[in-house]
């Protein structure tokens, strides 16, 4: 089951596969092993805090922290923080219960769940989306960096796989969001980029095609919770296949974005 096929023609694919694996692991290994050494100690000022056996609301409560108790915060998983008592007991406490704690030296504790207010102060946004490009199913990723309160620079990549051809689309441009503090917030896009269209192999007469385009788009962000937004958008592409003529292509996408 774990043996890799011995076919030589697969070697190049597997080499690529392991190169990607190696690259990713190299990229993340410093993050994985650079554990923070400093001790984060806080004092419980709430009446009590429940300690769960796992990072989820359904895991049983096996211990209750009392007011005045000093705990060490170890690491977090989503909304839960692994904490250790002075007696060495380890368990998970909810982030919300950290609202009523202070550091041992009187520091304020800011480990709450990100809110809509943080959403309008974000600097990075990354997301994935699915939709239709020219009536063909497509999948995409995007990353944006906020330049001002309202304007972000954005890079996008998507792939639309149809019955007759396969398009890879890269674009870069600006996104203007006039009211970032609204829970449902509209945005407008102006971008340019390149589309690479390759035909399916059973239609070998047609050639690979590279086109430049610009696009005008609009859409809506809907704030979900934490650091997440639903993003719906519509884009109109104007491709410039040759000098005398241009083509208009519609795209709509529904996706999810996270801000950091």
């Amino acid at each position, binding site marked *: 089951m774990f043996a*890799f096929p011995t076919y030589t023609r697969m070697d190049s694919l*597997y080499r690529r596969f392991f190169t990607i*694996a190696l690259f990713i692991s190299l990229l993340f290994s410093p993050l994985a092993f650079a554990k923070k050494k400093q001790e984060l100690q806080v004092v419980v000022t709430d009446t009590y805090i429940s300690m769960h056996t796992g990072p989820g609301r359904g895991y049983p409560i096996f211990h209750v922290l009392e007011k005045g108790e000093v705990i060490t915060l170890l690491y977090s998983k989503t909304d839960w923080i*692994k904490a250790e008592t002075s007696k060495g007991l380890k368990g998970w406490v909810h982030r919300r219960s950290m609202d009523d704690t202070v550091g041992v030296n009187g*520091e304020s*504790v800011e480990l709450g769940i990100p809110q809509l207010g943080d959403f309008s102060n974000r600097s990075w946004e990354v997301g994935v989306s699915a939709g239709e490009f020219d009536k063909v199913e497509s999948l995409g990723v995007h990353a944006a960096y906020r330049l*001002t309160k309202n304007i972000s620079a954005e890079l996008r990549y998507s792939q639309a796989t149809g019955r007759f051809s396969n398009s890879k689309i890269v674009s870069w441009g*600006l996104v203007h969001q006039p009211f970032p503090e609204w829970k449902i917030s509209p945005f407008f896009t102006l971008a340019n980029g390149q589309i690479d269209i390759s035909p399916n192999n059973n239609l070998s007469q047609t050639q690979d095609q590279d086109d430049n385009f610009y696009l005008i788009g609009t859409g809506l962000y809907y704030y979900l919770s934490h650091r997440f937004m639903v993003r719906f958008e519509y884009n109109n592409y104007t491709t410039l296949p040759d000098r005398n003529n*241009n083509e208009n292509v519609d795209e709509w996408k529904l996706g*999810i974005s996270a801000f950091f």
Partner: protein
Amino acid sequence: MHQTFNYSLLTLLLTTNLLFGSIVANAQPSSSETDNPVLDKIVTPDLERRSITEDQLDNEDWEIGVYSGVLSIEDFGSNSVNGLRLAYHMTEDFVLELNYGLSEAKESSIEVLGGGIQLLTDDQREYSYYNISLVYNIFQGEVFMGKNTAFNSAFYILAGGGNTTFNENDYFTYTIGGGLRFYLTDFTALHFTVKDHIFTNDIIEDKVTNNLEATLGLSFYF
């Protein structure tokens, strides 16, 4: 007419780009506080009002892993499959997962029984896929071993989309499935996953194919 429109719009785009580029380039931090560093050092009391923030706490929301198992490619036998998994745990309930996998199709029954018939060349038998799935942890809990050892676990369901490269062609692919995530520690997990990769192809006839995959994987959190 169209030409003029195109170029005016492109010019507009370029101007906006340049305009914002210059705004960003010219943005300077205000220098009101750092005028006299020596005096500041004497006057500012040693009491530092610190706060404990997210940056000081390690999060373990990202997961990276490998998996291996069996992929049944419709009409083309059961084949070994190897893959990579990158996942982001958004909340305690939802996970966003990216997968990339590789396999290779065996001969179909037609090719085995039909004498000299060959449907696919060797290169066309290469099968690779990627997909992005939304995972929902439907049953979370603890499983125990004996009296004193308990492990955290989650049974999850997932749905997503992606792309399959097979027959030297790309096919848009829907993925549905489920699995069990078994936490060995807070930083490592075992996965047992079953998925169905659904896409339409016309290799034998024009039809929707179901390609079932069962894998065992190991993941690390960082």
